[in-house]
């Protein structure tokens, strides 16, 4: 058991990293597909080795630290970003048994905590770069991520209330009858949007904001340090997709097919949806983003808690 756990601990991050790397290629292919193009299709069969080629390339790039940067923090920031995402995967249940710590009784809180720490990566990167664009990107990231974290947690409360547990495994088990996406449809929508904002993906990628901020918080980053931000972002997509699968789409549960396949399938569709969002939607203004969060999503998630609570009370009373 311990040995198995150790193997899991070693393998899981590697698989996640591999997936995230592959995802960079998948995203570009999909964007191509949705824009009547081909996307990268030259390296390896169908272009599948493009990610490897990019990885090699980025490893050979000059790993440059600007002389004006705060060096320690500058190096630390991408590592934090990477670490928080990888740690979150510890509590994701692939199946009932195959997970490192899916049974953790505060699993969901752990995920939220890790996501909260993830803000530091971006903020510190923006700060340590000691450049205007990076700092502005960092500030935006901080404001955006902290705001959306608030009702991300609140949105999840509906799920927790219905399950009565913070353990992700319990949450999946609780959906054996009905996926929470139906009773918690409001929470689902809020969590989806908050998840996009948390991973600062398009259309909510204002911290990067190429056309006004250069590249936002990672303007000064290059080489593998930039690569870590990049990979962390894609790992974040996988994480959020896996979370949504777990929390709202019944996790590994499904008919006929074996459990891991179901989980992977659901997660993949969600990842595809994330990419479709990028292909289709323009970026909102920053004030629109904040207004959406505070004026719509927050009241909605509060309402969701109240209604869920009321319905649950009615049920138990009845």
């Amino acid at each position, binding site marked *: 058991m311990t040995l198995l756990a150790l193997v899991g601990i070693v393998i899981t991050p590697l698989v996640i990293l591999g997936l995230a790397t592959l995802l960079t290629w998948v995203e570009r292919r999909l964007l*191509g597909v*949705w824009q009547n*193009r*081909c996307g990268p299709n030259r390296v390896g069969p169908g272009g599948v080795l493009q990610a490897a080629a990019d990885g090699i390339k980025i490893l050979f790039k000059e790993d440059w630290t600007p002389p004006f940067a705060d060096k320690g923090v500058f190096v630390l920031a991408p590592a934090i970003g990477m670490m928080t995402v990888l740690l979150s995967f510890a509590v994701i249940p692939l199946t009932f048994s195959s997970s490192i710590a899916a049974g953790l009784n505060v699993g969901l809180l752990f995920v939220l905590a890790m996501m909260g720490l993830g803000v530091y990566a971006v903020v510190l990167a923006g700060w340590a770069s000691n450049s205007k664009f990076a700092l502005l990107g960092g500030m935006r990231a901080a404001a955006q991520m902290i705001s959306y974290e608030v009702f991300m947690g609140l949105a999840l409360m509906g799920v927790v209330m219905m399950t009565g547990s913070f353990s992700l495994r319990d949450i999946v088990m609780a959906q054996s009858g009905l996926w929470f996406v139906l009773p918690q449809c409001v929470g689902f929508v809020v969590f989806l949007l908050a998840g996009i904002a948390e991973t600062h993906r398009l259309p909510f990628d204002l911290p990067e904001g190429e056309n006004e901020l250069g590249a936002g918080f990672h303007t000064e980053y290059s080489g593998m340090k930039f690569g870590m931000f990049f990979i962390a972002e894609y790992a974040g997509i996988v994480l959020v997709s896996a979370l949504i699968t777990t929390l709202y789409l019944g996790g590994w549960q499904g008919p006929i097919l074996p459990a891991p396949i179901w989980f992977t399938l659901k997660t993949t569709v969600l990842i595809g949806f994330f990419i479709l*969002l990028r*292909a*289709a*939607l323009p970026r909102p203004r920053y004030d629109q983003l904040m207004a959406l969060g505070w004026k719509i999503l927050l009241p909605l998630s509060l309402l969701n808690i109240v209604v869920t609570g009321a319905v649950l009370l009615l049920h138990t009373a009845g």
Partner: protein
Amino acid sequence: MLGNVRTLILTFLHAFQSRVTVQYPEERPYLPPRYRGRIILSRDPDGEERCVACNLCAVACPVDCISLQKTEEQGRWYPEYFRINFSRCIFCGFCEEACPTYAIQLTPDFEMSEYNRQNLVYEKEDLLISGTGKYPDYSFYHVAGVGIPGKERGTSEHERPPVDLHTLLP
């Protein structure tokens, strides 16, 4: 909100449309004859160089990447050297437009990449082709008034023979 959903659907449906990407080099696109690619110097129907070193292409060039020097042989003007720095050329075609003799022409060839930038400097030998290019019949000296070997003065199109100054007729 619904608009966003509609956008998502429409974008998604693009996945089932045909690709616009041309898989160059396996698949070669059709380039029209007036495509603006590699610049060449053509010859007139008699096989002589068309360029008369008038310098108009050089002055029309917005990036100043054409340079030449006039020389002369029995009334015919030639470029002594004719140099184009393709590492500067923007293929705007102004030189072709300025050329009064159809000598300089842009062709549908664009495959001229080099690893060494110096190799993008083309001299007259590199530019000169053996044919007439897009204008098969035009010969400047058959229209211009100057005399050249093989075409006496006064024998161009729309010209009378030279005036005999010794005649007493009005």
